[in-house]
């Protein structure tokens, strides 16, 4: 999990988050919307203020995510062995669940897969991912 991400973590009314999520890709280069729950959204690679249409929204900078971009083959190899659930077919797509026994967030763009995990689990996850990176090399 070589990369650490800055992000903006938002808890707000679902409608307000829907709007942000929809336009997220316009928020700037490399911003990735990760919708954890109807009322929770993390904008990866986003910093600075953001307009949320909910006066009670909780908006905090969050630099606690780490991740690794995998090419399609490595991702397939890894997920085939370590993920027990169906990954979405559309692209781009966000998914979350247990992979290699740990809770991760997955972002699938056209070619690559980003695996994101909380810093507190990242070292252990990296150790579980390492053999697959090795095999792909």
């Amino acid at each position, binding site marked *: 999990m070589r990369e*650490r991400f800055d992000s903006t*973590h938002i*808890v*707000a009314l679902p409608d307000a988050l829907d709007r942000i999520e929809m336009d997220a890709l316009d928020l700037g280069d490399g911003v990735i919307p990760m919708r954890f729950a109807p*009322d*929770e959204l993390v904008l990866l690679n986003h910093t600075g203020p953001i307009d949320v249409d*909910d006066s*009670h*929204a*909780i908006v*905090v*900078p*969050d*630099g*606690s995510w780490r991740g690794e971009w995998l090419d399609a083959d490595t991702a397939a190899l890894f*997920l*085939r*062995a*370590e*993920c*027990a*659930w*169906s990954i979405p077919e559309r692209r781009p797509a966000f998914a979350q669940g247990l992979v*290699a*026994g*740990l809770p991760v967030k997955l972002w699938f763009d056209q070619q690559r897969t980003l695996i994101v995990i*909380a*810093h*507190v*689990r990242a*070292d*252990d996850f990296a150790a*579980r991912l390492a053999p697959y990176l090795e095999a792909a090399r």
Partner: protein
Amino acid sequence: MAGSTFSYEGTAIDAQDGDSVLLALLRSGRRPTEGGPLCLAGDCPNCLCTADGVSYVRACQTAATGVTDVAPHPTTGEPPLPPFDETAVDITVDRRQADVVVIGHGRSGTAAAEDARAEGRAVEVVDAGEGVEAIGIYVGPHVVARTPNGTREIHAESVVVATGSSEIQPVVPGSGLAGIYTPRAARTVLDAGIELGTIVAVGDVDDETLSAASLDGVVAGELVRFEPAAGSSNVGAVVTKTADGEIATPCDTVIVGLGRAPRDMLARMAGPGEATIVGSAATAAPLPQCPNDGVVCPCSNVTMQQLDDVYDRGFTHIELLKRSTLAGTGTCQGGVCLPYLRSFLADRGESIQPAFTARPVARQLTLAEIGAGAHTSTAARTALDGLHRKLGAQMDRMGGWWRPWTYGDPDAEYAAVREAVSLCDVSTLGLMTISGPDAEATLQRLYPTDVSTIRAGRSRYVLMLDERGYVFDDGMIARRDDGTFLLTFTSGGASMAEMWIRDWSAGWGHDIRLLNQTFSTGAINVTGPRATELLTRAGITDPPPWLGHGKYEVAGIPCTIFRLSFTGEVSYELHHPLERSVELWNALSELGADLGCRPHGLETLLRLRLEKGHIIVGQDTDYDSTPRRLRHEWAVNFNSGEFIGRHAVLRTDRIPLDKQLLGLRFDGPPPIEGAVIWSGDEYAGAITSAAWSPSVEAGIALAWVYEVDGGFPTEVRATGPDGEPITGTVTSLPFFDPEGARARA
């Protein structure tokens, strides 16, 4: 010609392409077991061997390629355990998803797969004959299979079981002799070109098999027994009964056709609606005739006499029959004996009983194989984890986190807190932000305190009670200037607390926003008489007052600082973005170096807080800890309206008090934590926390002290750390600095 070789009892065995271990052995005139009729289909236990150190492997189901060392199954007794110094093997998992899993690639399986594909459904087919043995259908459905180089797990919408039928094995005297084959098995052996000597056939044997064996027909009559060849475990003759009496037909090999039984174990294992069963696996077969004699269960070596015997002694239920004889509990899980057990009971006039429950695993696999792909849950690591390890800390798992237990010198760590300044990684504390129109209303009902009186910039210690009025967590509530609240919880308590808050607030219909920041925020406690000085050096000249909090920048890092105290000294909890934890820690360490600043671990923290009489939920509390028993009534405000546990606390407060958590003081080292205490000869409770206190120069402890003879003892007896009797005196808390002057300094 290509082929492979494996070693068998010191001899190299050549296998031809496509050979199973069993075929290769039969070619060389050997067999892995002493005798036994063979099915060559994995249904009977009569070709077990030990392959590359793994016992109970069916030689007929194991490809000869890839096996290097084969040993026979012991003729008596059980295979040995592997040597205790044997190392584990690593197995990989191939995970797949499909709409349909078809188990069995025979005629009906192939048809089922084609039909499903024609409907555009994704199909996975597994077949033992192709090296992929399904071992179970689990909830899902989720099919797990053993493959030549690992395991395969397939999550599917539905499963088609097309496992065909097994051939019924003979149960007559001598059925354990070698040279007896079912028709299907005989054909396989003959096709492989293996010499079988003089062959005869009995029973219902199909023409194809007869012609493969160059036989014109079967021996007349009904099978009675097999007789051994002189001095051999091989069959020498088959005896049948005809109208004219018994006839013995000499032979080297007997083909016995007794019909088929559906191979439906996997289907019986599936949940309702998960699997459909097709082909001969679905075809009910008539029960075989009840045998009179012979071994009915070759796995557990159970004879018909034993069945008779237990039946006559009242073991009349099929499960009792099984459990009392152990028939059906071996490697074939009833594959051979189950039809006979049922026909036996039918023969005895019992109603025909259903087959006993099918459970995984249908075919066996090693612990390494069935454990493949699993991960053991790990503890979370704070952002300072690597740094602690570099500092030489002994790390320990507690509350779901790795934490420094000690950095090697607990006395120096203790002294730093009491005499200078010290850092402690408290990133493990649960932390949440709650906002929303009903945030305050939610907290008001969650906690037994009047949240409305917590002013902005202030915080308060709070208990969390369950509906029974028992304490299950504690922490702080802090109100921020913007009207939102920060909540803290015990390390490891956050996930439970988050669910608790969400469930209750949803139930109350409250409109809140809740963000759990436990995993995204670091926290460092700066504690000791020189803590304020250290903060000043870090640029904080106006730190928050006692029980206050605010936003600051420390060494350029944004922090929310809480002023509170668990150690009994001036303490500032610096909550900060965890990606900057290392930077903050290093800055503080550097700034505090000449103040005597050094970190302290959990061992020291536990001692420090014990001197202050602070409880640790989970260690000092139990399932039934009411605020009264914990002597924490001060933390419950009944004037704050409804709160969870209120009625239970009011109710239990009217019941006479039976035990309380009290402080004990010992002149010397205290008993171990968990030690039992006595009042005279009466049981008087147990120690929950204990330590030697350098500051009070006494052994100190928290203990559950029971009411004895109508009162609470003021003095208790316990066993000291060296086994000697010692006396503890009930002492008011805290043990150290009772006025709290040091913490508020």
